[in-house]
C-alpha cells in the first residue's frame, strides 16, 4: 500500500491548486463564448432564446458570467489594456456601455461584422454596441388606487400620495432625471434634481432596495406610484397587480440595454455571432412576450395585442428623452452621492 504522508499531501494539494489556477485560461476553446450579463429572469431568457435556440445549434458553447452592471463596466474599462479580456460579449445599460465605448474598450460594429446590424431601428443604432431591448422608465401606478391616470411628472410629487410614492434605489439616475426636469433642469445639468429629491423625502417617499421590492410594494399597496420601466409594469400586470403606466407629457427616461464585443475578446467571432443572435427577431419577440421590452430591430414582429400593451404611440415615442450620456458618465458618482445624502443621510 502506498503511504501518503502529510507532507506529500500538502505538496500534491499545492501543485493541484497551482495547476488549477494557472490552467484556467486555457480551458477556453475557440467555440467557447463568455458573455457578461445579468442573471435571474434576464439571464434565463438569454439562455433559452439566444444561447440554446440560436448559438448552440451553430456550434457555440455559451458561458454566462453573471454580475452586476458596474463590476461588468469596470472589467471592460480596466481590462482594456490587457492582451486578453475575460468576456467575449458584454451586456449593459446604454449609459454604462457609453463609458466603455468612450475609453476605447469596444470593437466597432457594422453590417460587415454583424449581419443584422442594418436592421436596427435608426434611433437606436450606435457605433460600438447593438441594442438588445428597450422600453422607458415611465410612471407606473396602481389603477385601483389612483383612478385618474397621472399625466404630468408633477403627479410624482402630489401631496395626496404622501407615504405612497415609491423610489427604486437602483434607478437613482432615472429618478434624478425626472426630478431635474420637474424642477426646471435639463438632461445636461440635472439642475434642481436635489430639490425634487428633498421634496420626495418630505413626502415620506419609500426608498426600495431593488426592482423586485418595488413590485412587492406595489402589490401590497405600500406604494401607489413609482418610476420604473413600462416593461416591468407590463410583466407585473400580467402577474395580477392592477397597474397602469404612462409616458408623462414632459417625456420619460428611455431604458435601453445594449451589447458589445470587447476589443480584447478571446473569441471576437463568437462575440459578433452573439451580437447577431441578439438581433434575431425570434429572440426579440421572446423578450417582448416575457419581459415587456420592445424589439430594437425593424424586422422584429410582435402581435398587435402585445404591441397595444407594451408599445408606445408615435407621440409617446417622440416624447422619450435623449439623455446626455457624457454628462451622466461624468457625474454618475456625484449623483449617487447626492441621492444618498438626501434620502439616506
Amino acid at each position, binding site marked *: 500500500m502506498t503511504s501518503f504522508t*502529510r*507532507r506529500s499531501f*500538502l505538496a500534491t494539494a*499545492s501543485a493541484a491548486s497551482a495547476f488549477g489556477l494557472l490552467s484556467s485560461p486555457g480551458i477556453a476553446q475557440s467555440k467557447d463564448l463568455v458573455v457578461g450579463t445579468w442573471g435571474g429572469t434576464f439571464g434565463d431568457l438569454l439562455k433559452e432564446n439566444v444561447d440554446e435556440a440560436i448559438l448552440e445549434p451553430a456550434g457555440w458553447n455559451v458561458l454566462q458570467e453573471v454580475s*452586476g452592471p*458596474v*463590476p461588468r*463596466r*469596470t472589467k471592460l*474599462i*480596466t481590462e482594456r489594456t490587457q492582451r486578453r479580456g475575460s468576456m467575449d460579449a458584454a451586456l449593459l445599460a446604454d449609459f454604462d456601455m457609453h*463609458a466603455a465605448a*468612450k*475609453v476605447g474598450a469596444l470593437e466597432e460594429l457594422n453590417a460587415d461584422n454583424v449581419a443584422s446590424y442594418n436592421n436596427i431601428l435608426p434611433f437606436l443604432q450606435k457605433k460600438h454596441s447593438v441594442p438588445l431591448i428597450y422600453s422607458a422608465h415611465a410612471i407606473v401606478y396602481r389603477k385601483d388606487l389612483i383612478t385618474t391616470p397621472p399625466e404630468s411628472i408633477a403627479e410624482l410629487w402630489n401631496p395626496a400620495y404622501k407615504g405612497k410614492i415609491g423610489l427604486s*434605489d437602483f434607478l437613482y439616475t432615472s429618478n434624478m432625471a425626472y426630478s431635474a426636469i420637474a424642477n426646471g433642469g435639463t438632461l445636461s445639468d440635472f439642475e434642481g434634481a436635489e430639490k425634487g429629491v428633498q421634496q420626495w423625502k418630505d413626502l415620506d417617499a419609500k*426608498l*426600495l*432596495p431593488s426592482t423586485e421590492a418595488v413590485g*412587492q410594494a406595489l402589490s*401590497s399597496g*405600500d406604494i401607489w406610484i413609482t418610476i420604473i420601466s413600462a416593461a416591468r409594469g407590463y410583466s407585473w400586470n400580467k402577474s395580477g397587480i392592477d397597474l397602469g403606466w404612462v409616458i408623462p407629457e414632459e417625456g420619460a427616461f428611455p431604458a435601453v440595454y445594449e451589447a458589445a464585443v470587447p476589443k480584447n475578446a478571446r473569441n471576437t467571432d463568437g462575440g459578433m455571432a452573439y451580437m447577431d443572435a441578439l438581433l434575431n427577431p425570434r429572440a426579440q419577440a421572446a423578450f417582448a412576450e416575457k419581459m415587456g421590452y420592445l424589439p430594437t430591430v425593424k424586422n422584429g414582429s410582435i402581435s398587435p395585442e402585445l404591441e397595444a400593451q407594451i408599445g408606445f404611440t408615435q407621440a409617446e415615442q417622440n416624447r422619450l428623452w435623449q439623455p446626455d450620456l457624457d454628462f451622466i*458618465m*461624468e*457625474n*454618475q*458618482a456625484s449623483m*449617487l*452621492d447626492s441621492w*444618498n*445624502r438626501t*434620502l*439616506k*443621510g
Partner: protein
Amino acid sequence: MAKLVLPAGILVLLLLGAPMLLMLRYSFNIFDPLYLMKTAFTWENYAKAVADPYYQKILTTTIVVALTCTVLTTLLAYGPAYWLARMEGRWKSKLTILTMFPLLVGGVVRSAGYLALLSTDGLVNASLRGLGIISEPLQLLYTPGAVIFATVGIVLPYMILTLASVIESIPRQVEEAAANLGARPAQSFFRVLMPLSLPGVLAGATLVFILCMNAYATPLLLGGPQFQMMAPAVYEQFARASNWPFGAALAFILLIVTVVLTSLGSSVIAKRYKAG
C-alpha cells in the same frame, strides 16, 4: 516544522496580504469617472471620510449596532452556554451540533428567511392580524430593530460555543466550594463563575463584535436602503459609484476602528478583572 508552515504562509500572503496592500495603495489614489482612478498619493479620501458628517453617522451607526448586538448576544448566550457546558451524556454532543446548525446556512439565506418573516404580508404580521392583535401591519422590515434581531440570531452560535468551551474548563467543584462557603447563586455567579469565564466572554465578544462591525448582507437586506452601515457603504463605493479610492479608504477606516475598539475593549475589561 517551519517548512510545513510555508505553503499556508504563502497562501495567506497571496490571498490576504497582497489584495490588502493593493487596496491600501488604491486608497491614496484620486477618483476619475472615466478611468476609475488616477495614480496619486493623497490623504484626501481619508480626510473626506473622517470629516464628512454623512460618513461619521454611518460609522457611528455601525459601532452602536455592533456594540448592541455584542451585549445582547453575550447576555443571551451565557445561559445556554452554561447549560451546554455542564450537560453530560449523549444529548451534549447532539445539542452542540444543533447549536452549530444555523452556521450551515449562509447569512444571505438566513436574511432572506427573515424577509419572509418580517415583511408587511409576512408570517409575523399575518399571524398578529389573524389573531386580531393588530388591524394594520406593523413596519418590522427595513428597521434598525430588524437588523439587530437578525444579526444577533446569526452570531449567537459563535458566542454560545466559545463560552461553553471556557465554562467547561472551569471545575464544577469551584462553584460547589463557593456554595459551601455560603455564597448565594448570584454571588457565586458574579464573584466566581463570571471572573473565571471572562477570557471566554472576551474571546466571544471580540469575535462577535468583529462580525457585527463587518455585517453586510443583514443590514443591506433587512435594514433597507435608508439604514446605512459601513460594509454596505464600502461595497456601494466599489460596485455602484465605481469610486475605488474612496471605497478603499472607507474599508481601511472600518478596519482601523474595529482593531482599535477591539483592543481597547479587551484591555479595559482585562484590567478591570485584574483590579477586581
